[in-house]
């Protein structure tokens, strides 16, 4: 069997290794355009901050790929012919497959006000990182538009390089997608304390410059001169390239698949950020890994019925760590921890704890997820909360 995987991100590589673990004979080729070797997209910020070097981003030693006989090719796939079971690459090569996995990930969304000027960056790929590094020395002010998790990472990098940053966030409170207004206020205060000019409820209205960015005008009508504009208004499945191939799979926002990661094309599967599995996109590292593993089983003919586990996530806003489990929105009990930049919030429905949002201290999400699944009463959970704490030794925070 020749398995071809398009995309060497965590979904593709995890799938390749899972297939290899079960099938020593299979021929496995991974073809990806961004880099030859798998790297951690999640660590882009540490490379930009220069606390890691490019090579440090690679989660596996390079010899692992030789030892596991995974053939790596650096090229962009430009055509897919499911009838002939063939791929064509930008480099002009043709590849035949028996099974194909599309794991092409996400790309940064384009903003309506965006213009193709030097100085406009995203923060998703290695090429974006190169652009950021190239632009940093000549930047006297940067504007970052979009207050999601990638936005705040980019802001942190710029602050690290002592570049003054204006951070424009559309919503009136910081990241309402997951944070309550009180939490949003804590995070906003924390971001401002790092010297960031954070503007809530403000967007970019237009962009100025000839060839190069000279500045932007905000929706409040203010003109801000800048040499770099970070567009971090979210990511979307990387499916554009599939719209123009000979036999496109069914697409919606992502590549549509069933619970076993099968697309509408025979022997073509999809997993990771690019896949819309029974109508759901999970653009998370752990999800891509889990999907890659499950898709591998499916490609080897095992019965797979993927159902995402209860939601959890974690992030870091500069120095503020955050963990969530279950639901994050809705009424709940919020408590700011005394004398600390930290809080706990338990989301409540019908007297049950349905979710947690914990800011500023460490938590074991496994325990929180378990409580959500067990549908415990909020009153009981509040009493047992310390069982889920995960602080360092001597550092247990009083709740």
């Amino acid at each position, binding site marked *: 069997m020749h398995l071809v995987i398009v995309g060497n991100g965590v979904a593709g590589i995890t799938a390749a290794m899972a297939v290899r673990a079960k099938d020593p004979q299979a021929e496995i080729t991974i073809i990806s355009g961004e880099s030859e070797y798998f790297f951690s997209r*999640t660590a882009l910020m540490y490379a930009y901050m220069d606390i890691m070097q490019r090579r440090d981003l690679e989660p596996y030693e390079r010899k692992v790929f030789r030892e596991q006989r995974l053939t790596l090719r650096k090229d962009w796939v430009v055509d897919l012919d499911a009838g002939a079971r063939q791929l064509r690459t930008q480099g002009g090569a043709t590849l035949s497959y028996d099974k194909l996995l599309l794991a092409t990930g996400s790309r940064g969304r384009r903003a309506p006000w965006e213009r193709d000027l030097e100085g406009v960056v995203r923060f998703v790929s290695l090429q974006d990182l190169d652009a950021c590094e190239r632009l940093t020395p000549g930047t006297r002010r940067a504007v970052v538009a979009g207050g999601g998790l990638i936005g705040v990472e980019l802001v942190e990098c710029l602050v690290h390089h002592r570049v003054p940053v204006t951070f424009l966030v559309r919503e009136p409170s910081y990241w309402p997608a997951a944070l309550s207004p009180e939490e949003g206020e804590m995070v906003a205060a924390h971001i401002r304390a790092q010297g960031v000019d954070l503007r809530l409820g403000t967007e970019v209205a237009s962009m100025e410059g000839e060839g190069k960015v000279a500045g932007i005008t905000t929706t409040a009508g203010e003109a801000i001169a800048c040499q770099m504009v970070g567009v971090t208004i979210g990511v979307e499945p990387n499916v554009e390239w599939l719209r123009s191939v000979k036999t496109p799979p069914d697409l919606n926002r992502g590549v549509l698949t069933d619970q076993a990661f099968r697309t509408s094309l025979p022997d073509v599967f999809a997993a990771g950020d690019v896949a819309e599995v029974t109508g759901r996109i999970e653009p998370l590292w752990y999800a891509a890994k889990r999907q890659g593993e499950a898709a591998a089983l499916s490609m080897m003919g095992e019965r797979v019925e993927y159902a995402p586990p209860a939601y959890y996530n974690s992030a870091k806003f500069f120095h503020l760590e955050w963990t969530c489990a279950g639901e994050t929105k809705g009424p709940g009990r919020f408590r700011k921890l005394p004398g600390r930049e930290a809080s706990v919030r338990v989301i409540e429905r019908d007297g049950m704890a349905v979710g947690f949002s914990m800011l500023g201290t460490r938590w074991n999400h496994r325990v929180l997820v378990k409580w959500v699944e067990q549908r415990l009463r909020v009153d009981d959970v509040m009493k047992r909360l310390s*069982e889920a704490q995960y602080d360092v030794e001597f550092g247990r925070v009083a709740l």
Partner: protein
Amino acid sequence: MIRDRLYHDLTNRGITGWIVAALLVWFYIALYFTENLTPWAQKVGLSSKWDLYGVLYTVVILVGGIAMIRKYGHNRYQVVRTAVVMFVQVVFAFSIPMMLKALHQPEYYLSYFWPLKFDYMNPEYLFRQPWPFVVYTLAASLVIVPLLAALFGKRWYCSWVCGCGGLANTMGEPWRHLSDKSSAAWKFEKVSIYSVLCISLALTGLLFYSWFTKSKAPEVVQFQTWYGLIVGSILSGAVGTGLYPLGGTRVWCRFFCPMAALLGITQRAGKRFHIRVKEDMCISCGLCSKYCEMGIDVRAYAQRNESFTRASCVGCGICSEVCPRGVLRLENQSGLVQISGGR
């Protein structure tokens, strides 16, 4: 900007890094093999170059320790650990020996034990000392030190007490990430560290044999001299500390220290100390591996959801500190009690 670039150069094997390494090696060579430092010691009113070294060592640990506490002030483990390291250095590794010396007594370094302090188990030396010291040394080296390592991991010594570890975790902090993370380095480590352990055990055995039989073969004398020169001076001093800016802070501790080998074995046999990995939360960013001074590829365990105990882990806790997703936690407890809800 210039300051940032200089710091980066110094801590990432740039020209300044090489210059500092050369100066450090030169300093150790001057210290161990010449008397060039003696006049300097006398100038500041100290009687020998070794006293000068003690003063410098203590000052550097204090300065580095304060910087460390400022950097990691939000992490109680780091604050407590660093404070203890500074305290031990000032009291046990500096003040007490200096006082004993002033009182014309032999200088005892009560925070160092065999086989790191090799002479303390040399019968010719040991049994000529007053009995409380003999009892202290035997009990500590043979029972207490390994016992504590079985209970709390080798960290109780290597990152809370030992002066070599103390220097690494204070002054050495800016260079900790330079340790080699490759699996080849791990292979080399296993060969080198257990070889040094075997050699030092063999030499101790020979010294006891000579002492019992009251006949010391010239080969044993030679062996002892070579051991002192290569292990004691070159590897622990010039290589171990001198190469901080090139090989990271724990070259000696990781590849050569016989005590590390013993404590590593005990730490694994004790099955209590471990680094717990929070399931399915690792984003494989690699900060933990990058900042592990022992060159342990922590990420490899974390991304497999595997809690672990590595013999070389000194329990410095920095992997846990830098992890942006709070995945890692240092713990002492028997058996890996799974508080998780399962998968």
